[in-house]
């Protein structure tokens, strides 16, 4: 686990080691996050130099955070999946499906009768069910996650197209649209939701039995099973959780765009995976960091923002993103090797 946990009991041995630990701090859990924050700061410096006022303004900051929010929520769910040693390629298209399902004529009619929250709950429920289907096939059908979620990627997108008939479905409820336009304390509601999901994710991963099981299964599934952990059931829950975050992201996407369409979230699974891995979660499982994921998401969003301000083509942006992913993973492996050799 990556975030500094509670202070270790101050017995003699830990005190002694405290002094010698300082040089290796950068390769330690906290150090990895420091490195990420430094990278983010560097990008910001470049942004200030090249963009000046246009980059370094409160308005632009809010634009960046708003853009980061939806993908960020997806990435939080993805962090759990990857920490457990799995992968979920379907979150982008499941999110698209949830936006469509929540804006069907039937759902909107019900929301009209009851409350606009019905749409949010519909999105969350659809996402969770899709995730549980993934989880059931992976855990009990013993199909590898890559293939299972690849199949879900295709079918969820197809289902979304069937339901929407490839039409854009506008959100009818004004109350819904107004809610997602709120800016408590000057910060968009989407950013507040992302923050809340991140904090909840952090506690879930670092402070609960759910998180401990996730890390243990990712570190050694067989040892976890032989210690009495119900690995299959937990795997089911993890993919369910990823589906739930896809549903939340879907609702947020509806708030941002005021329309549901089957093309929402195209290739977002890759962006979420990239942010998680750049953030320091091990792709092979056994180590995950929510803080790293949040910073990873911000790195990509700020980078896009800096490029856009400088009128760089989206093609050049893609090349830069690819380079960053490779660099981050190379660095990760060096740290991983070092920690194993000590």
């Amino acid at each position: 686990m990556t975030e500094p946990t509670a202070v270790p009991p101050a017995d003699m041995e830990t005190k002694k080691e405290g002094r010698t630990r300082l040089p290796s701090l950068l390769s330690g859990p906290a150090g990895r996050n420091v490195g990420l924050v430094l990278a983010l700061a560097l990008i910001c410096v470049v942004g200030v130099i090249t963009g000046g006022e246009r980059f370094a303004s409160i308005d632009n900051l809010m634009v960046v955070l708003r853009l980061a929010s939806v993908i960020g929520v997806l990435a939080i769910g993805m962090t759990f999946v990857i920490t457990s040693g799995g992968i979920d390629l379907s979150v982008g298209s499941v999110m698209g499906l949830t936006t469509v399902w929540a804006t069907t004529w039937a759902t909107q009619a019900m929301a009209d009768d009851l409350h606009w929250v019905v749409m949010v709950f519909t999105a969350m429920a659809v996402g969770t069910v899709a995730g549980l289907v993934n989880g059931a096939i992976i855990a009990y059908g013993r199909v590898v996650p890559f293939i299972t979620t690849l199949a879900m990627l295709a079918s969820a997108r197809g289902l979304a197209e069937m339901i929407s008939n490839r039409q854009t479905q506008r959100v009818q409820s004004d109350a819904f649209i107004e809610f997602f336009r709120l800016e408590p304390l000057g910060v968009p509601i989407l950013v507040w939701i992302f923050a809340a999901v991140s904090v909840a994710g952090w506690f879930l991963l670092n402070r609960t039995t759910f998180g401990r099981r996730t890390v243990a299964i990712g570190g050694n599934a067989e040892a976890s099973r032989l210690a009495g952990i119900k690995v299959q059931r937990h795997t089911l829950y993890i993919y369910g959780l990823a589906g739930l975050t896809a549903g939340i992201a879907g609702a947020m996407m509806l708030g941002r765009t005021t329309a549901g369409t089957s093309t929402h979230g195209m290739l977002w699974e890759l962006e979420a995976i990239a942010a998680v891995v750049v953030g320091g979660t091990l792709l092979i499982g056994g180590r995950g960091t929510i803080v790293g994921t949040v910073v990873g998401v911000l790195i990509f969003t700020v980078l896009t923002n800096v490029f856009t301000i400088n009128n760089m083509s989206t093609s050049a942006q893609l090349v830069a993103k690819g380079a960053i992913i490779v660099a981050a993973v190379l660095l990760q492996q060096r740290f991983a090797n070092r920690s194993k050799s000590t």
Partner: protein
Amino acid sequence: MVTGDPTAPLLEMQGIVKHFPGAKALDGVDLDVVPGEVHCLLGQNGAGKSTLIKVLAGAHQPTAGTIRLDGEQIRIPHPVAALEHGIATMYQELDVVDGLTVAENIYLGHELASAGFTQRRQAAARTRRLMERLGHPEIGPHQEVGALSAAGKQVVSMARALSRDARVIVMDEPSAVLDSGEVDNLFRVVEELTAQGIAIIYISHRLEEIRRIGDRITVLKDGMTVGRNLPVASTSTDELIKLMTGKDVEYAFPERPGVPQDAPVRLEVDGLGLGDTFRDVSLTVRAGEIVGLAGLVGSGRSEILETVYGARRATAGTVTLDGRTLRRGSVAAAVSAGIGLAPEERKSQGLVLDEPVYRNVTLASFARMARAGWLDERAERKASQEQAAALDLRPRDVERSIRTLSGGNQQKAMLARWLVHGCDVLLLDEPTRGVDVGARSEIYALVRRLADAGTAVLVVSSEIPEVLGLADQVLVVSDGRVVHSAPAQEIDEHQVLDLVMEGTSA
């Protein structure tokens, strides 16, 4: 030392010594092999057979000693050098690639090629000739190896050795993966090879096999040659077992206080079976008792333990703990009922290597210590530190990654896991595998202390002295059946070895 009749040797190993950090695996081994013979290498687990063949295969470098081939001293610095000298090794896990064809496997690493293109036709023709030489023309060069039986794969492995012009072929328990019909086939091939002047070094625990195809026997014990060039025909089973056993065990076993007659039965296994692996296993373990299962690799002993634990789903029989029958095939049910397992492969089955010691110790109990799903890491650390002190875990620091601990201390952490969990029945699979000699006595003492505190212990080991020294009651397992049961004081190593070796011939 017993010495038989010497002939002009093809391969001579003299005074081979191999040190590992903290252990002497080989301490003066002599072995000489003449052309066209089947030379059997006998010895108990830990006698040094594997180390010896790894030296011969170039996987280990000897600390001292000489190896001669045709009277000329050679060095084997790496595995390719062994092949260049004409020494091929067939390990138990056959090193064939399932997805490739027979011909591709045989020429793997030394492909017949010109200008970068593989010469498939030539390779196929040569493969056919090799298969004819081995008496298996039915295995075609273009067949996929994955579709062959274990015996077929062995033939491919042998063909590969021949394609390298091997003159000495080492076979490590080749019959272990074969059924009896296939064993006959193997022996036919071995006869073909020896008729062509190739020497075979044959490692097996099964005396009946050695009697059928062996010419001479070399016996290893504690890293030394104790019997050399014994003719198979004139050496009695009794003599061989005497050479393999012996009483100079370097570690002390704790005293047995004796299990009181009225101690309650904790674990009751009745008629347990698992497909073809084992059948009709019944045993009881009382509170404070240590029951040992002795048997060879592949006899089913580890599988019995894993089935009791629910890690494998039994096909017959029941496991009862303190009168309550456990659900089949559910580890979680076994753990919550109070059974703990320290598995054979500690690193792959027991530990989450990159996690700190305390999280490994509490892996079975963190959920119980938690309150409404919220971890209580303070309690976890406290419990782990208490156990670390009680078991003398070194280093004592429970925050450290468990990867950095020695084998003995990792095993202590495994025991600590079940102590923290508080289990009534402890299953130990090879408790001292990868544990150095010094730490063994400590582990033994710990296990006995647990038993004295009322835990029922079921231990499996391939080291017979360990079972005899540690257990109160010994069950001998052979071919998936319990063939004998006796109090540890009333049976000796000789008898156990006799039972496990001869038991397989039934």
